């Protein structure tokens, strides 16, 4: 039986097949998975904010795209994943409430997605699947047996990326 491992907000979990890593109810947050298809080692990170250097509170490194991705990457490598084989998928980054004069913080979903991709690019990790934006919540999970990343929504259907 595969273990279903819950990943909370501002946290990440790593594991190997047959674990399934799941994170519930993402709004503007992003669920970023890294996966090594050969060793079937992978991780799922649930970030809230794009950039740790712009925040007054950055002790929890998994809260931010920049520090969270780097920490999870290190942990995967120490488990035996090979960086050059890693592929990334990401989903989330919605804007839940539409305001006419949306401030920066309301558009944090967009910035989260952009920052995540920028950091992955700087680490030369290819993004092979993406489902970001919109105005609806997502529950995301990655199956470490095959790397399939599932996105579930309330009324926008489910998909695999």
């Amino acid at each position, binding site marked *: 039986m595969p273990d279903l491992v819950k990943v909370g907000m501002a946290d990440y979990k790593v594991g190997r097949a047959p674990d399934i890593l799941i994170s519930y109810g993402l709004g503007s*947050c992003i669920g970023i998975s890294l996966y090594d298809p050969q060793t079937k080692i992978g991780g799922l990170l649930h970030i809230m904010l794009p950039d740790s250097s712009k925040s007054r*509170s950055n002790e929890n490194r998994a809260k931010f795209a920049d520090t969270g991705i780097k920490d999870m990457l290190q942990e995967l490598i120490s488990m035996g994943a090979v960086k050059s084989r890693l592929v990334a998928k990401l989903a989330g980054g919605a804007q*839940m409430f539409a305001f006419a004069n949306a401030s920066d913080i309301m558009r944090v979903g967009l910035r989260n997605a952009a920052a995540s991709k920028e950091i992955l690019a700087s680490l030369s990790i290819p993004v092979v699947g993406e489902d970001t934006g919109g105005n609806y919540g997502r529950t995301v999970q990655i199956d470490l047996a095959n790397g399939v990343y599932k996105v579930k929504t309330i009324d926008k259907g489910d998909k695999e990326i």
Partner: protein
Amino acid sequence: MSDDIASLSPVQMDALREIGNVGAGNSATALSQIINRRIDMDVPRVSIVPLEEVPELVGGPDTMVVGVFLRVYGKAPSNILFLLPRDSAFYLVDMLMGKKHGDTQKLDFMDESALMEIGNILSGAYLNALFNFTNISLLPSIPALAMDMAGAILSVVLVQLGQMGDHALVIETEFKTEDDGIKGHFFLVPDPGSLEIILQAVGV
């Protein structure tokens, strides 16, 4: 500075609870008059919760809820979030629109507008009470509505707090109609700097 809310004294917590009590009492009266039912209200919970645990207060991050969100402007900027489980929201719409219990199965434009107006009235009543108590005048933005997973909706306020710390100060009240058909959670989430201003105004 980040997690100064963790060091609130019991007296300060009591003051915040009283603010929640007066505010929510006023809101409950308003709601009761609109739908013409008695509304029971719990003693407000004032809690300091790690950000990731806030969705648990309403049944977990994947619970289906309707949320009405208002930004509060003024000397003590805050956020207001009025959350209803989906079935409660549908029942409330039945009452507001003069339909039979169970008629509403999804929200159309009019239903959403009615729920946003409820959020508006409740927030107005709440902030009015807060003003009487603290003499801080606060104005709500126009309301916005979303029906989705609780975690996704709550993330809107949590992200703002996440820039400053890892905890949320939540003043939360649960409303219930007598028949338990409608339950709602009213959250007042002060911005990090606002808490100090509110506490100073009540002199604790």
